[in-house]
């Protein structure tokens, strides 16, 4: 017993140095990675685990930390003049983690697999818009079966990862889950589901060599445990912690912090039912919300006010489209429809609690602001799974809080899918808006498409068809001596962490 006690004490003393090893980066990560196939199943469309995928796999096209696009495994890409064909050039010299070269046939196989219904890729509807691939050396051409102006942006987005054809076919889906092989900067060394993934630097990586030889993603879903991880030195870096804790830790000796607005916004979906069919009610609800106050008081300043579904980093952001905080105007609008503080308009608002920072508290404050102008909102708390369920069935309450991620920053993947009636994600369903958005789906002139979405956003803002609230800010805390480049797409990439 004495021997074991001695060993425990000895091990304890050495554990304090766990994260101080210069060649290892330990990340206390907020979610667990369930699957290594980044192209199928629910994990593939979970934005929060993309950082891990991006460490191991390459995408067709990559993104800079400011959301701009850069070459991934494709070095060139584009359409022909009439948009009937696409042409892609595959990077030469890229290797899989097993030493095999990355070839054009890997790219074609990955795209074709993604486009097949039976593989279960949730973005299959998009990948199936291209086909009839031909390969000439490292140049790939394909027919455009249905024109989608965002296809290349999607090549840097969800499920757009390239997998090794020969290896995958030889080991099968289950074999790949157990021994995944990618071509990214890190390769999987050990993975324990719900506990950690240990990655080793891939020396054959075609891009810049990451600084850390070993990266450990510890899956620590509880925020207080993540705070403890970084505070005790057991992990070098963590994210997604309460802003109060961020301020405390960033001010502490031995720790530093960085925050950045990310491609995730908080909004209130409006369902065009009941009282929400009255534009005065909707507009009053929008004008009565003091977003700046919410950001300052509730979120300690960590948020960026937005008035459309475009954050400032998105390609269709228009700083001139604004919805003023004007409670007097809200009262007048409600009075025009026969409502007042004494005779309030009543509706339900749904929200999650604890899914996003201060989500429930934000809605409580908004309900208070509404009450002052003559809106009585009944708050219903629900689980995020119920939100998805209700939204898919178009049965959300007249108002529902939600967050919307859009890491490629295209207006079609924010305003488009959130507001276009036939989309299963939309709760707003009116002919006037659909008539504006509809033609933009296939618009080949990029500047006309972007301008078109700006006009749609202005129309939505004017008619309060949705209430955008704020762009979330990601807090990252790390040990002194590290330098972290935050990514607007909300990635925490180990390849973007270096020693100072």
């Amino acid at each position, binding site marked *: 017993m004495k021997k074991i006690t001695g060993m425990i004490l000895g*091990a*304890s003393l050495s554990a304090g140095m766990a994260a101080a090893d210069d060649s290892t980066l330990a990340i206390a990560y907020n979610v667990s990675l369930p699957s290594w196939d980044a192209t199928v199943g629910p994990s593939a469309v979970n934005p929060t685990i993309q950082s891990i995928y991006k460490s191991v796999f390459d995408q067709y096209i990559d993104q800079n930390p400011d959301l701009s696009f850069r070459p991934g495994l494709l070095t060139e890409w584009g359409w022909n003049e009439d948009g009937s064909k696409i042409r892609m050039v595959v990077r030469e010299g890229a290797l899989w983690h097993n030493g095999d070269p990355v070839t054009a046939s890997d790219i074609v196989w990955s795209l074709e697999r993604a486009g097949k219904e039976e593989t279960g890729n949730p973005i299959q509807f998009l990948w199936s818009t291209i086909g009839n691939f031909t390969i000439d050396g490292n140049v790939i051409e394909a027919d455009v079966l249905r024109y989608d102006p965002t296809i290349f942006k999607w090549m840097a987005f969800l499920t757009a990862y390239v997998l090794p054809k020969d290896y995958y076919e030889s080991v099968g889906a289950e074999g790949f889950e157990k021994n995944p092989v990618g071509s990214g900067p890190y390769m999987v060394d050990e993975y324990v589901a719900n*506990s950690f993934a240990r990655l080793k630097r891939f020396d054959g990586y075609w891009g810049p060599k990451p600084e850390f030889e070993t990266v450990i993603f510890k899956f620590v879903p509880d925020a207080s445990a993540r705070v403890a991880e970084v505070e*005790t030195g057991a992990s070098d870096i963590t994210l997604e912690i309460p802003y109060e804790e961020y301020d405390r830790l960033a001010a502490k000796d031995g720790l530093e912090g960085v925050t950045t607005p990310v491609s995730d916004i908080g909004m209130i979906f409006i369902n065009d039912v009941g009282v929400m069919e009255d534009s005065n009610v909707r507009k009053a609800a929008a004008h009565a919300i003091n977003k700046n106050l919410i950001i300052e008081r509730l979120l300690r300043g960590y948020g960026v006010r937005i008035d459309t579904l475009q954050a400032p980093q998105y390609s269709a952001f228009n700083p001139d489209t604004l919805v003023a905080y004007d409670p007097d105007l809200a009262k007048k609008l409600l009075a025009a429809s026969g409502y007042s503080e004494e005779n309030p308009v009543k509706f339900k608002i749904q929200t999650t609690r604890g899914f996003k920072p201060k989500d429930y508290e934000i809605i409580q404050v908004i309900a208070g602001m509404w009450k002052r102008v003559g809106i009585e909102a009944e708050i219903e708390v629900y689980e995020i*799974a119920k939100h998805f369920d209700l939204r898919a069935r178009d049965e959300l309450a007249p108002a529902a809080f939600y967050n919307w991620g859009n890491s490629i920053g295209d207006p*079609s*993947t924010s305003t488009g899918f959130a507001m276009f009636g036939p989309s299963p994600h939309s709760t707003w369903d009116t002919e006037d808006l659909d008539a504006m958005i509809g033609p933009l789906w296939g618009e080949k002139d990029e500047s006309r498409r972007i301008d078109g979405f700006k006009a749609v956003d202005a129309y939505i803002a004017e008619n309060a068809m949705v209430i955008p609230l704020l762009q979330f800010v990601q807090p990252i805390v790390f040990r002194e001596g590290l330098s972290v480049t935050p990514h607007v797409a909300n990635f925490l990439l180990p390849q973007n962490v270096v020693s100072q």
Partner: protein
Amino acid sequence: MLGVSVVVFAILRLVPGDPIAMMLPPGATEETRQNLERLYGMDKPLIEQYFIWLRDVLHLDFGMSTQFRLPVMEVIFNRLPVTLELVLLASIIALTLSFALSVLAVWIQRDGATLIIDGASGLTQAIPDFLWALIFIFFVTLYAPSIPISGRYDPRTAQDFITGFYLIEALITLRLGTFAELLRHAILPAFALALPLAASITRLLKSALEEAMSEDYAILARTKGKSRIAIILGEALRNALIPVIALTSVQLAFLIGGTVLIERLFSLPGIGSTAITAVVNRDLPLIQGVVLVFAALFIAINLISNGLYRLADPRLGKTDE
């Protein structure tokens, strides 16, 4: 088990939270939704889905986990040892603490000591296991930063085990350094789970021992000159065991349930933390599998406790003549 299978299958499909809806990315169409429903077999009527699932379960095929993309049984059996070891360690801690404290309280018979033990066990029982876990994490952050609060072992090190029972395997193969490392990681979650159970057993065992010590056989033994501690350990303890076994078997079931939060807080890859991620991601095949395994464990615990009753009191196994 059949009843459990019907209930869990029905409840999972009646509560809001469509797993296909959670899988739909921006831009998904109705066609995408129908395709995914077809792929996951959710396009068929509910009754048909149930009988397909039941038929497969009877062939020991619990389906594929939608999130892990592996067979459900493989996912469960990879994680079950983590939970069972945690529960075993917590039970050992709880029983050791409670037996020691109860015997001590009855032995020394001092009002002050009894008051302290009663007060401590009352307070310990009032705090649920997950709160103990948070208290430990807070304590470690402030005073003992070298004690690990996440994982089963240091992820910087590679481990080589044949079974999933790392602690037991390390002990049997005399890898004491590894055993110590594993124990160091398991100690906080095990204590968090054990303390409320230890408090319950202490209160019950102490009163059962006190009652036994007032029985005629104990008084007789005392008059024969036997020491108080010898009577407690030699005679009273065995008689006090029956209610303790009953309570422990019931509490063990709760202990397994308690691992759900404890494993999540300490990032342990057991069946409890898996159950949470399965629920959050609406991984219906995995939730069904986990519930059935939990149900089987509860039944096993009841059978074991019935056996232990008979060991503690052989009269229970005999029929009246």
